[in-house]
C-alpha cells in the first residue's frame, strides 16, 4: 500500500516526510555536527575533507559545497538541519530562505516587509503564482531571462 501523501501538489515545497528523512539521514547528521564550535572550525578549514568524514552521497556533498539549499533539500536535507550550515556561514534564516527563491537578499527582504508572498496562485501546482516552476527564478534574475 502506498503512503498517503496529500502534499505533493503544493508548488515549490518539499515535505520532509519519512522517505525524505531516510534519504537525508547523513546530510542532516552532518549539519547537526556543526552545532559544535570546534566542528564549525574544522569544516571551515577544509570543507571537502570534513564532508568526506560522513557517509553522504557525492551529490549531497556537491550540494553542500555549492550552498544550494534547494539541491540539498532534494537530496533529503531538512531546512532546520541545513540552517546549521547557514549559521556556520554567518547567514540569517531570512538570507537562507531568500536564497531558495532566486531573489536577491534585498528583493526578498522587501517582499517580506510588504506583507510576504501571496498565497494566490500558489496553493496548487498548475496555477500561475510566483512560486510555480514556470515562474522561476524570481526577482530581477527572472526578468533578465
Amino acid at each position, binding site marked *: 500500500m502506498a503512503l498517503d501523501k*496529500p*502534499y505533493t501538489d*503544493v*508548488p*515549490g*515545497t*518539499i*515535505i*520532509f*516526510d*519519512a522517505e525524505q*528523512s531516510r534519504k*537525508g*539521514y547523513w546530510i*542532516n*547528521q552532518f*549539519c*547537526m555536527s*556543526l*552545532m*559544535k*564550535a570546534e566542528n*564549525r572550525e574544522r569544516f571551515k578549514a577544509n570543507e571537502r575533507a570534513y564532508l568526506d568524514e560522513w557517509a553522504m552521497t557525492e551529490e549531497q556533498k556537491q550540494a553542500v559545497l555549492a550552498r544550494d*539549499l*534547494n539541491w540539498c*533539500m532534494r537530496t533529503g536535507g*531538512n*531546512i*532546520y*538541519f541545513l*540552517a*546549521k550550515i*547557514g*549559521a*556556520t556561514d554567518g547567514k*540569517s*534564516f*531570512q538570507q*537562507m*530562505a*531568500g536564497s*531558495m*527563491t*532566486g531573489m536577491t537578499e534585498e528583493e*526578498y527582504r522587501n*517582499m*517580506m*516587509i510588504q*506583507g*510576504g*508572498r501571496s*498565497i494566490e496562485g*500558489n*496553493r*496548487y501546482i498548475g496555477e500561475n503564482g510566483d*512560486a*510555480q*516552476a514556470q515562474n*522561476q527564478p*524570481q526577482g530581477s534574475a527572472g526578468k533578465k531571462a
Partner: protein
Amino acid sequence: MAKITASVFTSHVPAIGAAMDLGKTQEDYWKPLFAGYDFSKQWMKDNKPDVIFLVYNDHATAFSLDLIPTFAIGTAAEYKPADEGWGPRPVPVVKGHPELASHIAQSVIQQDFDLTIVNKMDVDHGLTVPLSLMCGELDPVKDAWPCPVIPFAVNVVQYPVPSGQRCFNLGQAIRKAIESYDEDINVHIWGTGGMSHQLQGARAGLINRDWDNAWLDQLINDPVACAATPHIDYVREAGSEGIELVMWLIARGAMSDVNNGQVTGKAPKLAHRFYHVPASNTAVGHVILENT
C-alpha cells in the same frame, strides 16, 4: 489543587531573540512587533504564574534524526539555552519543575498518550524566545526567569506531525493531570510557533494574513472546529512551517471551557490579541486567554 489560570499563544521566530539579544528592539523594523508585547509583559507581572507549561518544538537542536519523539516532556531540574550554530542565547538558564513534570508525565501516559520523558536536554529558541517576549530582556547571570518552566516538545519537523485533533485531546489530558496535583499552584500553559511561514523552496516567504486571522478567530471562539483543521490545510494555506500551529491546540485544549472534547464551560476571557507581519520570514500571532 493546581490550576491552569491562563493560556498564552505566540510565535517563536529566532530573529526575535536575536533582535532582543543585540539591542535592536527600537529599530523601525522591530518596533511595531515589540509594541505588541508591551501589554503582555505587564500582564505577566500582574498575573505571575508559579509554573509555565511551555509547548514548543525543537528545531533539530536537542533532537537530531537519531531520535524523533512526537511528544517529549522535560522532567529535569534545569535546561541550558542551546547553541544552535550562532552560539547560545545570552539568557538565564531555564529552571524546571521535576515534581510537577513527573506527575504530569505519569498521569498523561495513564490517559493513553505516549510521552517521551526527557531528563537531559538543551532548549532552543522555540522555548526561550516566547519567554523573552513575555518577560523582557534579562541578564543571563544576574537575572532569572520568573518561575519554573516545564518544556513540552512536539515533533513538527518530520512529517507526519501529530494532528491538531490529537493535540487538542492531549491538552485536555494535560489539564486533568495538572488539576490532580495536590499543591495549590497557578499554572500557565503556553502554545508557541507559527503563524503562516514557509522557510523552503520557491514558495519561501509565504504569508497568509486572511487565513491566519480566520484561524485565530476559530481558535478563540470555536476550538473544536479549529482542532479539526487537517494537516494539508496548514501546509497549503499557511506554508510548510505553518504546521507548527498545531501546538497552539494543546494549550487551547487545556482551557476550562473544553470538557470531553466539547465546549461546555464558560468561554475564556480574551485578554490580548496581536498580529504582525513580518518577523524575518514569519507572520507573528499572539493571544492571551484567561480562564474565568
